Every structure is written in C-alpha cells, then in structure tokens.
C-alpha cells in the first residue's frame, strides 16, 4: 500500500500544561499545495515546526515516505522552511545565503555556486548575488528565502506565513509567483497562514485548524460551501449562521423554525428528526437584498446598520434582532437601484437550495 508523502498520525504536542496540537491526523500527497489555516494559537505553526523537526511531538508519529521521522534532528531532514521573518543570514551575501544548504550537504564549491546562481536567475535575482541582505527590498528578500529553501531540491517545502510582512499589493503578486513555482516544480508545499484569501488563492487543499485540532480538510470550494462545523462556518468566508429547530421534513427539504422566520433547506445526510436543533449557514454572497417584501424562498428583514465598500463588492450589515447581524455581499452595480442608506428596513432573501445545514455533532 502506498502512503501519502507525508503522514501525521495522531500527533500531539504539549508545552508543559498547554496542549498546542491535540491529535492531528494529516496526509499530504506528493505534489500538492496544502494550506493549513486557522486563528492565532490554533497549533498550525507548531504542526509545521514538528514536520521540520524543530519541535518533538509529545505523542503520535510523523512519517515521510513511510519512514518515521520523530527522532530525526532538524539537520538530518530535508524539510526546508520559509520563515515568517525569512531569517536570511545578515552576515552572508545573497549568494552565500542560497548556497548555505548545499554547503551543509558538502556539495563541491563549483557546483554549489552554479546551482545557487541558477536559482537566483530563476527568481530574477542574479545581479543581486553579491549584495547584503539589508540592501534588498521585501519582495527580493522573499525570493531569496524561497531560493535558499529550494536549492537542495527537497520533496516538500514548508512555508510559515511568509507573506505576512509584505504590503497588500506585493503579497498578491508573490502569491501567484509561489503558486506558479509550485506548479512548475511539482514539489509538495505545506503553507501555514491565518489569511483566508491567501490560502484559498494558492492551495489545492485547505486544512482548517482550531484548538490544536484539524476541523476540516478539503478543497477551498468544499470548505467554503460546505463547512464541517460551526467553527469553520464562522472562520471561513462571510457566512451567516442561524440556529433553529426542525419543524417539518418533506420532499427532500427540511423546514427550520428560527427566531427570524421559518426557512427551508435541502435535507442533509444523515437526515435530522423533527424537533432537532440545528444551524443553517447562508453565505453572504448568495443573499439577495431588496427594499420590499415579496421575494421568493427564504426571507428575513432587518435594519441596515452599516456598509463596507471594497472595490466592486459591497457588504451590507443588517441588524435582524437578537444580536445577530446578517451580512449580504453584492456587486456594487447590483445595488444601483436600491437606496441603502443607514437605518432603512431591508429584506434579505436566498434560495432554499443555497441554505447549508451544518452537520450535527
């Protein structure tokens, strides 16, 4: 039986009383781009550091190509990491930084230089080879860090929020550069981030972590449209979560009574029973907004309290009572006909099939 390239088997990491990683099972296959995402302190960086050998798992096993890695020291593995602060050696030139990994593997000076220069050329940095790290811009440093990590041609590259120090514009550019590089090389990338757009834009698979556990793994689309639990639904995207009780099950639809009205949704698997409490998830981008009642499907109403304008997309925040602010995301031109000044009563509607029922736990 062939195993995935990297396997984490019930991996636990405790720091004294505190459990940072609480039994993570994870399989990363060859050539995939996996993003590990979660809020601060969720254990994502600790997981990555255990893969690199910078932390020892307290329990469980990490296998690379089927071989147990737990006891290997960091320098005995080939799991280069791109650091959040890049950690480029300030006392070495750009070229010497890139050469470092090869030097440690006792590659002859000439070959070392050739291979490093190739990488610098590939990253468009050949002319900076002799410079000090301090003389480079943020984006250039980023490329040096990636070249330094990849020069040994590892099977897997670990990245720990490498773009967090860059400004928004540069970050987006580096995202596509990294994605392209990964596709060209076919090397497995494990990318830790707390930034959802970054994870979704780059990764083929996303693992959402919280409280030291993986909450969900799947394609960005799956995670976005079918969150596995309340945490994921709240963490990912701009989802509205409404809790209620099942009042009817009929024709593949479930009717749920909530404080804001009765809504229909497709019956999930396994089907709930009448009287069960459950949560409905409505993605903000699937909501239609109008200033008059009478829309088809699920409708609720509330008072517009604010709006957020991000380029072509507008998010409307509608206070629907009971402390819940309902979000609707629209293209700006879709709202041209609507008067959406603060304090207006608005109706939000969405189709029953666009309602997602959170799996019950």
């Amino acid at each position, binding site marked *: 039986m062939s195993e995935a390239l990297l396997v984490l088997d019930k991996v636990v990491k405790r720091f004294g009383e505190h459990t940072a990683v609480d039994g993570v099972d994870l399989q990363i296959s060859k050539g995939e781009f996996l993003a590990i995402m979660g809020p601060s302190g969720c254990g994502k960086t600790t997981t990555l550091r255990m893969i690199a050998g910078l932390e020892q798992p307290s329990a469980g096993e990490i296998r690379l190509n089927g071989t147990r890695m737990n006891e290997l020291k*960091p*320098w005995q593995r080939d799991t280069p990491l791109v650091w959040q602060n890049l*950690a480029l050696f300030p*006392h070495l030139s750009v070229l010497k930084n890139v050469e470092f990994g090869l030097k*440690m593997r006792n590659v002859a000076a000439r070959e070392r230089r050739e291979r490093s220069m190739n990488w610098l050329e590939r990253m468009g940095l050949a002319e900076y080879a002799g410079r000090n790290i301090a003389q480079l811009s943020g984006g250039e440093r980023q490329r040096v860090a990636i070249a330094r990590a990849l020069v040994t041609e590892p099977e897997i590259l670990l990245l720990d929020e490498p773009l967090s120090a860059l400004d928004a514009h540069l970050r987006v550019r580096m995202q596509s550069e990294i994605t392209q590089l990964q596709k060209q090389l076919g090397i497995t990338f494990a990318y830790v981030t707390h930034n959802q757009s970054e994870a979704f834009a780059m990764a083929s698979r996303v693992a959402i972590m919280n409280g030291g556990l993986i909450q969900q793994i799947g394609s960005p689309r799956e995670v976005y449209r079918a969150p596995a639990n309340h945490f994921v639904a709240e963490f990912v995207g701009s989802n509205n979560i409404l809790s209620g009780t099942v009042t009817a099950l009929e024709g593949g639809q479930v009717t749920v009574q909530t404080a804001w009205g009765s809504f229909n949704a497709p019956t999930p698997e396994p089907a709930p029973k009448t009287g069960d409490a459950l949560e409905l998830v409505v993605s903000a981008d699937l909501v239609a907004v109008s200033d008059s009642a009478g829309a088809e499907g699920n409708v609720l109403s509330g008072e517009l309290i604010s709006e957020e304008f991000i380029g072509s997309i507008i998010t409307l925040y509608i206070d629907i009572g009971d402390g819940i602010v309902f979000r609707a995301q629209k293209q700006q031109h879709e709202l041209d006909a609507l008067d959406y000044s603060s304090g207006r009563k608005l109706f939000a509607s969405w189709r029953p099939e666009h309602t997602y029922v959170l799996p019950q736990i």
Partner: protein
Amino acid sequence: MADKALTQPTAGTAARNVDGYALFWGLPLALWQLVFFVAPLVFLVVMTFWTVKNFRLTPDFDTVNWVNMFSKGYVIDTYFRTLWYGALGAVVCSVLAFPASYALAFKASPVVQRIGLFMLITPFFTSYLVRIYSWQAVVSDNGVLNNLLGVFGLGPFNILGTLLGTMVGYITLTLPLVILLQFFSLSGVDRNYIEAAQNLGCGRLRTVFLVIIPLAKTGIILAGTFAFILCFGDLVSPTSLGSSKPPTLSILIVDTVKQGNNWPRAAVVALMMVLTLIVVAFTAIFFAYRVKKEKT
C-alpha cells in the same frame, strides 16, 4: 554605499542642531574627560621631555628620555612581551569564556540565567588584589593545589612565578567580564537564525561557528579587547603570580620610578602603553563593526 548616503545627512543634522538638552546630559562627561583624561595625558606627554637632576624633576625640553628608553633592548623586549601576554590573556580568556556564555545564553533557563549572571558579578565584590593573594596560597609550590595533586602522586608543579601563574591572574581579572559581555551579545542573536541554519542541514557545532559566532562577532571582539586592555596594563598578576620575572611594562614603570625617581622615563613607557591601547581599541572596533562587502 547606500548606508553611507543614508547616515551622513542624519549625522550632519544632529551636529547642526546641538540643543541645550543634549548639552545638559553630555557636558558632565565631556568635562570629566577633559580634566581627568586629556589634561593628564597632555601633562604625561610634556613630562616625557623633562629631566631628572639629583633625583629632582626639572622641567626641560630634552629628547634624552625617548632616546634612552628606545635604545635599551630590554625595554623593546618588555614591550613585545607585554603585548604577547595581553594577547594571550585575551585569547585564552575569550576561549574559556565562550562555552560558559554560550550555555548561559542558549541552554540555561531564565532562573539559572539570573543566578549565573549574579554569580558573575560577585567576583567584583572583593578586591582583585585579595583574590590574587588567595591564588598565591593555592598555586605556590607547597600550596593547596600541589598538596592535593601530591595525594595522587603528581607534582609538585611550579606555577607561581611562571607565565601560567600570570595567566591564572589575568583570567581571574577578566573572565567574569568577558563572559558577561559575550553573554549579552549572544543573547542578542535571534534564535530564528539558529533554527534556520539547522533547518538547512547545519549541525549544532557547525551552527556555532557558521552562524552564532559571526552574528555575535561585535560583542565577542569587544569582550576580547576589554580583556586585552585589562591584561596589558595589569601590575598585580605579573608581580604576585608571575614574580615579576620577566617584567611587563607596568612593572617597568614601577621600577623606573623607584630606581632614581625617574618619572619622565616612566612617562615614556606609560605613553607607549596608552598609544598601543588606542591603536588596539580602534582596530578592534573597526573589525567588530565592519560589515563585510562580498564580491562576486
């Protein structure tokens, strides 16, 4: 190049707007330096041209002291010997201090670190002279150490009155300070660099030499320089543990003054020492803060 362009205008602005507030803080030091360093130094230079007549100092302008001191082989020998002793003391002390400061900076828990730092300060509680006298009792021919070794049928070893004795004294003088200075510079090394090196396949020992020492270079060089300065001018260890044979420059100054009250000649030696230390200190600072410019 880029750095220079950046720093120069800043330095210029700072020099132009000397405000009263900066002066308030800077003035006491400036005055102190003027009264207790520059003025005596000038006087020292002047005195080297004075003469001694019937054991009395006479203001004069005579180069006889300079000619006399530099034409004596033993003065030149003593100069180079002192230079060598100081350098040896600095190197031995830096090497001995490094494992201690490394362990304290990277391996010790915060509590152990605090206790360790405190223990490094305690030697300064007692006079250096007292500590050297205690060493005499330990290392003399029938002292504590030789008696102890004698139990195992070893020795006696002659330490008192040798270079080894002098070195023991030098290390007593400088080791705590050198460990402290090294510790502070090692503590400033970002652990990320250490982990990054290991992540790239660099073993622990290799990381020390390829990453940690280069990054802590400034502090390590300055600590060694301090050790050199202290050893080079020390009088106590070479007299009390080295038995003044062969003499160092400090011993030479004392002897010159005692024999014939020849302050001007002693001043020549003192000036040689001051100039040497200035050159050494500035060279060390140059190397400590130098940023390597690599070429491809």
